[in-house]
């Protein structure tokens, strides 16, 4: 029965939703200091290529590859975060967009290393590695009524789900901590934050590095799930796609990008006939959101209203105890 429910296609869509949620969060983190970064597709590519190349050429375990990939992306985040400290708004967006393109062009032209625009195939697959390891201990998917194929996708999905929950948990905690307060103060007013004794250089670069780390991590996961990457995966389109998650879902609270990524990844899958018009719809969404609801669908007042409603309903049923936000 379980076996019939587990459809690799659904699981794969689920995995992409989770990866996109992580990518959406990466933009949200940088944006929570008021810095709009369009370089996250580039950071994603750095993470993906680093991990793919390390695992293929040096036979490193996937976990090590992913960690190094994320760290290299974070390092690039620091390197681009420092010179762009003085830039704001549209200027920062232009520079980071340019950076993303530079990364893509490097992937295309450094053929000896990256295989150029053909891309890299035969990247070790996380699900298969997990299965192999477990089989080493004498485990067979059939024993829980699953085929190998189903088990592979199920294990990736569960792994990604745990990681996504951890990422959400971590950044919600951070949002309520000293670091989160500093981010919020910088976003509201840099001069005021500075006069309150907040080291704005440190926190702005930190936000940039965190965003890059998370994007690089998502990229590395992406590489080991698809087992194939090419420069086109990390091009301008990807940068816009990630940005749309945040623009559509909302950038004030972490639930915004999560909802945006969830909805906009699922939409073209459920409504197959519109997937060809995807980018047209994205453009339309940006225009409509800018005009009607610039803060995105989910904002603080909406969450407050929802939690109030929930509390009321909770009281009626005598369960109560809803946590706000």
């Amino acid at each position, binding site marked *: 029965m379980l076996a019939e429910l587990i459809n690799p296609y659904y699981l794969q869509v689920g995995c992409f939703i989770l990866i996109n949620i992580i990518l959406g969060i990466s933009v949200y983190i940088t944006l929570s200091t008021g810095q709009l970064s369009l370089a996250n597709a580039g950071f994603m590519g750095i993470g993906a290529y680093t991990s793919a190349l390390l695992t293929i050429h040096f036979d490193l375990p996937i976990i090590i590859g992913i960690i190094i990939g994320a760290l290299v992306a974070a390092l690039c985040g620091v390197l681009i975060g420092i010179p762009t400290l003085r830039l704001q708004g549209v200027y920062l967006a232009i520079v980071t967009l340019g950076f993303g393109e530079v990364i893509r062009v490097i992937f295309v032209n450094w053929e000896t290393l990256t295989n150029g625009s053909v891309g890299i195939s035969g990247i070790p697959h996380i699900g298969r590695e997990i299965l192999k390891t477990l089989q080493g201990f004498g485990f067979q998917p059939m024993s829980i009524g699953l085929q190998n194929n189903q088990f592979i996708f199920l294990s990736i999905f569960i792994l990604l789900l745990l990681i996504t929950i951890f990422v959400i948990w971590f950044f919600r905690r951070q949002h309520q901590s*000293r670091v989160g307060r*500093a981010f*919020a103060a910088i976003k*509201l*007013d840099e001069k*005021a*934050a500075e*006069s309150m*004794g907040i080291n704005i250089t440190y926190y702005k670069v930190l936000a940039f590095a965190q965003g890059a780390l998370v994007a690089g991590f998502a990229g590395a996961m992406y590489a080991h799930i698809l087992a194939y990457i090419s420069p086109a995966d990390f091009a301008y389109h990807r940068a816009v796609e990630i940005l749309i998650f945040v623009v559509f879902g909302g950038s004030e609270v972490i639930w915004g990008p999560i909802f945006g990524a969830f909805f906009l990844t699922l939409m073209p899958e459920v409504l197959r006939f519109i997937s060809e018009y995807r980018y047209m719809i994205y453009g339309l969404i940006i225009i409509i959101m800018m005009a009607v609801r610039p803060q995105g669908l989910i904002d603080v007042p909406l969450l407050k209203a929802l939690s109030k409603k929930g509390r009321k309903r909770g009281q009626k049923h005598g369960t109560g105890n809803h946590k706000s936000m």
Partner: protein
Amino acid sequence: MLEVSGIHAGYGKIQVLKDVSLEVEEGTIVTILGANGAGKSTTMKSVSGLLKPSAGKISFLGEDVTGLRPDQLLRKGIALVPEGRQILAGMTVLENLEMGAYHRKDSEIDSDLNKMLERFPILKEREKQLGGTLSGGQQQMLAIARAIMSRPKLLLLDEPSMGLAPLVVADIFKIIKEINQSGTTVLLVEQNARQALKISDKGYVLETGKMVASGNATELLSDARIMEAYLGKRSS
């Protein structure tokens, strides 16, 4: 307490301050006066670390603090209430006050917070309100209260009376005087010369980046030549 000697500072190629020196003694209120563009705010920015002087020396409590970052200076005890108040408009009054204690890790933050709310009843009344919804005078009080939350030894106030109604201005000056009496040294920048000098011990007059006069507040107030030349005629 604070000694500024011969600083030069500016923005890019534009030199604003040319050889500015001043001294603030512990427990006093010192006012810097001058017309628009005289370099008052630039002096404040240099002292608070927002701007690095290109030459000269600033020492605080006998220690050379030239070129330190604002957050380092705040830890040493210099807090700035910036020009135009710079309230965190999207945070509540309470959160604004808490942010003032950002660098502190001691256990007395809460009691300081309560003291501050007692000291400014209007802030207590509006503690849950967003900072941006306060009136100008209330925002100025919030900005001052927020700076005091860092427990400064020296409080820098950049044009606290800017854009406020005369009655509110009188209130703000009263508050500054009280803060000083409770032990905080104050360095004030003002265009509102007479009122500022009335609560001050000492005054400096800046003109196009140069210190052109200094003296006891009472001396400056009674010096007809200075009052007329730099601070405008008495209109009565």
